[in-house]
């Protein structure tokens, strides 16, 4: 049984800015769960599209009931592969990401398509889809529910993180490298995470998501 989720959103930044920011979105105050980021493959095709593969490692935060049932899973972080295609002529960025480990517990596959907004000027449309499934006998339903809740929360963080990075470009005419990739002060990130926690719905404890 697979849970499917899709969502369309627009952000008020031009497509070129969004795609440039896509490569520079980590770290940001909303990405404290992302531990490492690496490009492991890159190719410019003959028809001038950019193919990339990124490897991300993220913390594996589970609700307490799951920690008790699956103690072994706490030991390791989650490895995620994110493949992407940038087509600068069609002005589209398509990404597809999935986790490599902890897949029996939960498999999350996410596809995002970033295109120029058809009806709003200087805006970018983002279509996000996810497929979430669990192979654990007897627990697949609560795990999938948890997975979907965490995915939606991460999706909000991802958008906030991208907008945070984009806000550096406010008012600029042309995309440029946003900043030197200096590591954000840890205190600043923790502070931002606390602020996020204080406005999060009280039904979902922050530590799970």
């Amino acid at each position, binding site marked *: 049984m697979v849970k499917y989720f*899709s969502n369309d959103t627009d952000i008020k930044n031009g497509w*070129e800015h969004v*795609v*440039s920011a896509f*490569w*520079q979105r*980590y*770290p940001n105050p909303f990405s404290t769960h*992302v*531990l*490492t*980021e*690496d*490009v*492991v*493959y*890159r190719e*410019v095709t003959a028809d*001038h599209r*950019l*193919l990339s*593969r990124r*490897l991300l*490692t993220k913390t594996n935060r589970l609700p307490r009931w799951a920690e008790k049932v699956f103690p072994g899973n706490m030991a390791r972080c989650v*490895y995620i*592969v994110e*493949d992407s*295609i*940038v087509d*600068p*002529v069609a002005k589209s960025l398509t990404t*597809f990401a*999935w986790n*490599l*480990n902890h897949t029996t517990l939960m498999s999350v*596959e996410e*596809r995002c*398509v970033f295109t120029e907004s058809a009806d709003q000027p200087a805006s970018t449309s983002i*279509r996000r*889809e996810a*497929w979430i499934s669990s192979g654990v006998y007897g627990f697949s339903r609560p795990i999938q529910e948890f997975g979907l809740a965490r995915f939606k929360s991460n999706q909000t963080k991802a958008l906030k993180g991208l907008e945070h990075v984009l806000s550096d470009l406010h008012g600029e005419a*042309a*995309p*440029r*490298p*946003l900043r*030197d*990739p200096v*590591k954000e002060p840890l205190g600043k990130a923790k502070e931002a995470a606390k602020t996020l926690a204080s406005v999060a719905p009280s039904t979902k404890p922050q530590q799970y998501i």
Partner: protein
Amino acid sequence: MNSVGEACTELKREYDQCFNRWFAESFLKGERGGEPCGDSFKRYQQCVQRAIREKDIPVDGLDFMGPNKDKPES
């Protein structure tokens, strides 16, 4: 942002800076010709691929966008 290989973070930053400049100033503007960051990419990859092997991260042999093949068009 840190690399998965602790020793590779500096090489990653060097490559990222080169790539981000080329991406915004050349690639998006339609300039043909490959990415000029080949040297820094090579140094970075030597380091990170070794870290991936040492940590047994199962990223080898995966088809590009593999799981997307069985999904309907968005």
